[in-house]
């Protein structure tokens, strides 16, 4: 009897959750479906959901029109480069804050996060001028540096959270057993730190991939990543639903897949471990 009630409730839950889930996911699904339609089918009334002639034409048109490959490559280099650079700077900092905390550690952490609140638009022109002076405008190097800086506070915070969860006693025990500094780092600390570092890399890559303000304002043609590629479809001449959908799908699919794989780490990383 109790079991039947549970099953009934489970069914209701399932239906409700799937309905809402599909509703939320619908814009993405619709975009992907539309990318396989012809322009005429894309705006057909009543709209066609699954039963239409599937075509790959939009993808080749988009690739020809705007050289998707180059934008994709820029996105990879910029997101990857800024993440790598950020990790190199942040790991030692977070490490020392977690293992050698001082009275000011908390203040430094809060100050770092506060730089994230500096409105980007307020400092856009100075950065723009500096970039012209340094020859960094419309270069991948320039964007790597800027995106590294804007995400650095988040990286430090995330790593700090992860490192703090590594118990100090384990280190002391290893020392008691006569482990050298090298084997201490190599065999004790690294294996425990790697999962945290990996999820930080993942999240930072996603943030850098989707960042639009700086990429739109500091690039023109050469270094423009996918955010700029897609923004070029906002002009009236680009208003073709099927092509827009194909371009959108090409821009979001890599990061969507990456995001799905990392969803568990995301919560801890994004909340600095404050929510368990």
């Amino acid at each position, binding site marked *: 009897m109790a079991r039947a009630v549970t099953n009934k409730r489970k069914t209701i*839950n399932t239906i409700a*959750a799937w309905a809402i889930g599909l509703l*939320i996911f619908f*814009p993405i699904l619709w975009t992907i479906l*539309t990318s396989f339609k012809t322009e005429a089918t894309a705006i057909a009334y009543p709209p066609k959901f699954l039963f239409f002639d599937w075509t790959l034409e939009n993808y080749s048109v988009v690739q020809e029109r705007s050289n998707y490959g180059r934008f994709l490559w820029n996105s990879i280099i910029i997101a990857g480069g800024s993440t790598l650079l950020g990790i190199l700077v942040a790991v030692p900092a977070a490490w020392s804050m977690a293992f*050698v905390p001082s009275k000011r550690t908390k203040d430094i952490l809060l100050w770092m996060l506060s730089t994230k609140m500096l409105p980007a*638009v307020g400092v856009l022109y100075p950065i723009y001028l500096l970039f012209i002076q340094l020859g960094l405008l419309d270069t991948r190097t320039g964007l790597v540096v800027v995106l590294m*800086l804007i995400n650095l506070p988040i990286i430090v915070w995330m790593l700090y959270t992860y490192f703090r969860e590594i118990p100090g006693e384990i280190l002391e025990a290893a020392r008691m057993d006569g482990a050298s500094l090298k084997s201490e780092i190599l065999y004790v600390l690294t294996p425990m730190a790697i999962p945290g570092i990996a999820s930080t890399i993942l999240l930072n890559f996603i943030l850098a991939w989707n960042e639009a303000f700086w990429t739109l304002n500091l690039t023109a043609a050469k270094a423009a990543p996918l*955010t700029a590629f897609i923004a070029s479809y906002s002009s009236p001449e680009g208003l073709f639903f099927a092509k827009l959908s194909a371009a959108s799908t090409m821009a979001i699919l890599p990061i969507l897949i990456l995001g799905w794989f990392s969803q568990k780490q995301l919560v801890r990383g994004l909340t600095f471990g404050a929510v368990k």
Partner: protein
Amino acid sequence: MATQHSRSAARLMMAPAVVLLLGWMLVPLTMTLWFSFRKYLPLRGGDLGWVGFDNYVRFVSSSSFWPSVQTTLVIVGGVLAITIVFGVLLALLLDQPMWGQGMVRILVIAPFFVMPTVSALVWKNMFMDSSNGLFAHLWRAFGAAPVEWLSQASLPSLILIVSWQWLPFATLILLTAVQSLDGEQLEASEMDGANPLQRFGYIILPHLSRAITIVVLIQTIFLLSIFAEIFVTTGGAFGTRTLTYLIFQRVLESQNVGLGSAGGIYAVILANIVAIFLMRIVGKNLDA
């Protein structure tokens, strides 16, 4: 454990991050402050000298200033309200036993990974377009006249788009908090005759307060500076000009760096007021 030696090593390890962020904060900010006191028109004569507080007065007294502050607060407030209310409900639902829980969760969090430029364009064209958008089809199916969403209901439309992007984040964080609820406490209260509403108000909501704080903090940081969504949908027209967007227009579109910089300083002040308030809460949570 911390010796003098390890302390100085720690300082050395922290130095690059601290120096970089300090530079990132101070250099452009000082320049912005400097420009804000000058008449600076890159395309019309360049730097034309010191003007004192003229830019500040002009920026505040311009007819678009207060509306832009209001728009900013309406968008941030609207998105926060929607994502938290629906985030809590959705988190509670997703916590229930069901079939295919993992798959549903993946569907729900997907929008979070969608590039803001993409999501804005997709909503604008494929849903809110007044002749071929799906909403137009839907309205027509019910015999109603299609709505020009982004011009007639621009702010609600924008809030809808941004909420769609941030609801997954709120849900994900709140779901994690819901999962750590004490089941026994809930059962005990049920036995004591507490109705669902009471259980929600006295047990679930207080338990979620910390997660809600975090959601408010992170979202506010990002929402105060939303740009791409406005850039590709309305371009700041139809009352969707936030403070960020107004400054962007002054600096880049009308090439008035002095005026824009004064606006930038106002934005920094606004962000700091919000930040002080938020930092207190986070600082408190950090201790626990």
